[in-house]
């Protein structure tokens, strides 16, 4: 192969594929053609963003986390609180919430880097439980079990007032999702992203070729935490309510399922998973609203026992063929 061949082979992963355009066009179409489902679309976008952030941690960096809700929840409470305190500009709120969650991610990344999958699980889980306990106890700040109420959020860019049908909310969340997706895609395809994927694939060799593993993982974990925080902030702003639920264990577990349904490590997994998950939830909740958890558990178990590769192997093979075929 020639120099040009090698250059193109290296550039291939970051080239936009037709399917990617189709995906985003389909989302645009959903927004335009299904105005009555705007609220659902908003929830899906937020869940997708949350799952995208987990993909950076789990799919790209290979860190199994059971407490990703800590960042989502911190972002939600931060955005809610500053909205309540009078700083109602939504974009600014997102930034502050992202910074807060990113800072927590940075602080806890040092704990997560050490040890095996099991210790990582326990540390991430413990961090999220501490956050939940904090939110539960600091009732003057968070409203405790009653939730944070009285959040005021201004118009987006001073022009677009949030409406009760969720039209503005859905557009707002989708645009933020798209922008942060671009950021994630850019990060992953940069040399930095390649280094992080190498670390996930083989930490021993990564160290042996001189990659500073700790620094790279701290960076990706903090960035992912910030994105999760922004997802939480979107939820707080568009629903103007925050409850302890944002920090609950089942939220960390659910986002894991969302990502796994869509497939890990190629960034679209979280988004595809969010769409499938919300559709499924819509159907199953109608069936037996209070026992949604049962179906959730059943999906988890079936997925693993049958084999994730077998269930999702087909769509992913199609995707790879399209991606790699150029």
């Amino acid at each position, binding site marked *: 192969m020639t120099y040009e061949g090698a250059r193109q082979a290296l550039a291939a992963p970051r080239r936009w594929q037709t399917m990617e355009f189709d995906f985003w066009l389909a989302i645009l179409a959903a927004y335009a053609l299904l105005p009555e489902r705007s609220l659902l679309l908003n929830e899906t976008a937020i869940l997708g963003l949350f799952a995208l952030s987990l993909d950076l941690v789990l799919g790209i960096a290979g860190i199994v986390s059971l407490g990703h809700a800590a960042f989502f929840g911190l972002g939600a409470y931060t955005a809610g609180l500053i909205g309540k305190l009078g700083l109602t500009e939504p974009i600014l709120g997102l930034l502050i919430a992202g910074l807060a969650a990113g800072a927590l991610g940075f602080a806890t990344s040092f704990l997560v880097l050490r040890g095996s999958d099991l210790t990582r699980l326990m540390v991430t889980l413990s961090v999220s439980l501490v956050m939940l306990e904090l939110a539960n*106890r600091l009732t003057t700040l968070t409203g405790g079990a009653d939730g944070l109420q009285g959040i005021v959020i201004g118009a987006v860019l001073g022009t677009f007032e949030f409406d009760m049908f969720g039209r503005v909310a859905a557009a707002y969340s989708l645009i933020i999702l798209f922008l942060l997706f671009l950021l994630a895609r850019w990060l992953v395809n940069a040399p930095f992203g390649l280094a992080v994927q190498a670390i996930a694939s083989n930490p021993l060799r990564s160290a042996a070729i001189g990659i500073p593993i700790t620094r790279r993982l701290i960076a990706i974990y903090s960035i992912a935490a910030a994105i999760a925080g922004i997802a939480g902030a979107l939820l707080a702003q568009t629903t103007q309510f925050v409850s302890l639920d944002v920090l609950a264990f089942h939220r960390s577990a659910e986002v894991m399922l969302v990502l796994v349904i869509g497939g890990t490590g190629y960034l679209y997994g979280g988004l595809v998973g969010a769409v499938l998950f919300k559709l499924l939830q819509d159907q199953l909740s109608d069936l037996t609203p209070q026992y949604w958890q049962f179906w959730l558990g059943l999906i988890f178990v079936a997925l693993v026992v049958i084999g994730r590769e077998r269930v999702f192997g087909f769509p992913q093979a199609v995707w790879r063929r399209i991606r790699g075929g150029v």
Partner: protein
Amino acid sequence: MLTILVDGLAYGMLLFVLACGLSVTLGVMNFINLAHGAFAMAGGYVAVVLVNGYGVPFLLALPLAALAAGLLGIALEQTLYVHVYRRTHLDQVLFSIGLVFIAMAVVDYTQGSQQQFLNLPAFLKVRLDLGVVSVGAYRLLIIVVCGALALALQAILARTRFGARLRASVDDPIAARGLGINVNAIFAITFGVGSALAGLGGALGAEILGLDPSFPLKFMVYFLIVVTAGGAAGMTGPFLAAILLGVADVAGKYYFPSIGAFIIYTLVIALLVWRPNGLFAAASGR
């Protein structure tokens, strides 16, 4: 002060009986089983139904609860778990969380979401004066039963042929297989026994642990702490870890009621950072 120590001791020993099965699962198969608490919950509910519903004597309900949880454990091990042993840790986590969710929903559906209270027999409600400290008969029973179980487990591990094979399988599963030890069978039996012990612990401790459908989630962290802090080798590490955790938790909740829960999680984080391989793990290989 002494009362807290005794309460903590009872709580810690209970945690040991609940969690010791998990340490074998983790040690032998390197399997992260987050659903271990579901077996304890099963034992607890079996005891509640038997005692409260059918008037079975409490002391008879205990072995029945253990039996039920053990059978459930073996059944699930043979049908589901065997497919998942060789999977990635992510798969194991997803799978066992799924089991937890199913267990919680099933219990919620059949028994309701409220906390269950076991009708303890009258002789367990008295307090015994032991000179320096007065102890509830119920807690004394817990200490005696769990202490006896711990000793029995230690003896089985140290003295019997089965124990030797189990220890070999924990130390080096590959080498053990090479020596002709049927690691799978050993594991199935230990899984059953571990589940039975969890079930017994769930039944025995129903009153102090608080039994409701969220039980497996609530105690997931505690079990994991016992196992990781204690290390997977042998029973002594997990036992000491469980006692420490029990005393720390009871004391924390008594002296600092507003921040009691933080103490435990903060301890966990600090511990895992300090000794990622367990508190009592031998400093081998370094």
